[in-house]
């Protein structure tokens, strides 16, 4: 399923869009639950991508994305438009993923990725990271797991979820240049980390 959110440019359009978002949220909060489908259409990829970027097991991503969207619905009456809707949903999705990883870390026999995510958000065991990752290429997954949190999320959302720079900037509350920089630095770090064989050389 590939869903896209609409991105408008310019301050006026941004304000207009925020007003629309707020109106939509208020209508949903007031009981027009059928309108929540618009939120699902626009932000499922963002939520799923944010969750996947935390090193969550592939099998858990659907359930966690569902949980994140239900949390969005439950909390939508409290959305006051102080931040962009995408940014708010992105934070909820990250919290759900991190909560899940914390729960796993508390269970005996669970270690590595989860604990690392909990503490520094950088898995210390790339082997374990690749096992939990959604990325099929093992070497790439291991290298991605070594990236700083922001670089990993920005790279994942841009390449795997095909979000635009603008959408990532909105969600991560960064300016466009910072997003570009994070993605470029991420790629440079990956080029350093990946060996010749992994790059098909």
């Amino acid at each position: 399923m590939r869903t896209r959110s609409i991105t408008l440019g310019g301050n006026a359009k941004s304000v207009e869009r925020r007003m629309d978002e707020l109106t939509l949220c208020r209508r949903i909060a007031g009981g027009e639950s059928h309108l929540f489908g618009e939120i699902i259409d626009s932000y499922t990829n963002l939520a799923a991508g944010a969750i996947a970027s935390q090193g969550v097991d592939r099998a858990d991503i659907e359930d966690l994305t569902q949980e994140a969207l239900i949390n969005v619905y439950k909390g939508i009456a409290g959305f006051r438009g102080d931040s962009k809707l995408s940014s708010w949903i992105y934070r909820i999705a990250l919290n759900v993923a991190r909560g899940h990883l914390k729960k796993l870390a508390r269970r005996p026999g669970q270690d590595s990725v989860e604990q690392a995510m909990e503490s520094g958000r950088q898995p210390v065991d790339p082997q374990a990271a690749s096992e939990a990752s959604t990325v099929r290429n093992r070497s790439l997954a291991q290298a991605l797991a070594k990236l700083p949190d922001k670089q990993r999320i920005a790279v994942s959302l841009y390449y795997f979820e095909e979000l635009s720079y603008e959408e990532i900037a909105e969600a991560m509350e960064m300016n466009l240049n910072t997003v570009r920089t994070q993605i470029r630095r991420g790629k440079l770090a990956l080029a350093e980390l990946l060996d010749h064989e992994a790059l098909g050389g």
Partner: protein
Amino acid sequence: MNEEKLQKVEELLRAERGVELPADFKLKVMAQVRSLPAPELIAPRRSWRDWVYTLKLLSSGEKVAGGLIIAGVLALLIPGVADVLALWEWELADLTLSVGIGETVASASLLSVVAVCAAGLFMTGVGAYAAKHNLIRA
């Protein structure tokens, strides 16, 4: 950095696909959403941020009154606190805390505050129960 290597990283990243969710994902979420009451009726979870937000809403006078009430409750609960308050000419009598600040005396009746708090908690409880059991429709 070798541009060719960077290009290969780019190709590797583009070859990966994002999270694939089942086609009925939206239906599943909407089914859950329909089983829930309207979000306005779902009691928000309290967190420390709510308390900070509430404190910001209060005026200075209300904050002083709140402080007096807390001091009064502490004076009731902790033995010896009343003696310490007395050193500053603060007096706790008939469940009313009187505080002397220079020429002015501020006082707060603990009983009335407790009654208001109890009424507030009761109303919140009724609201939360009604929301949880879907008794109110917007």
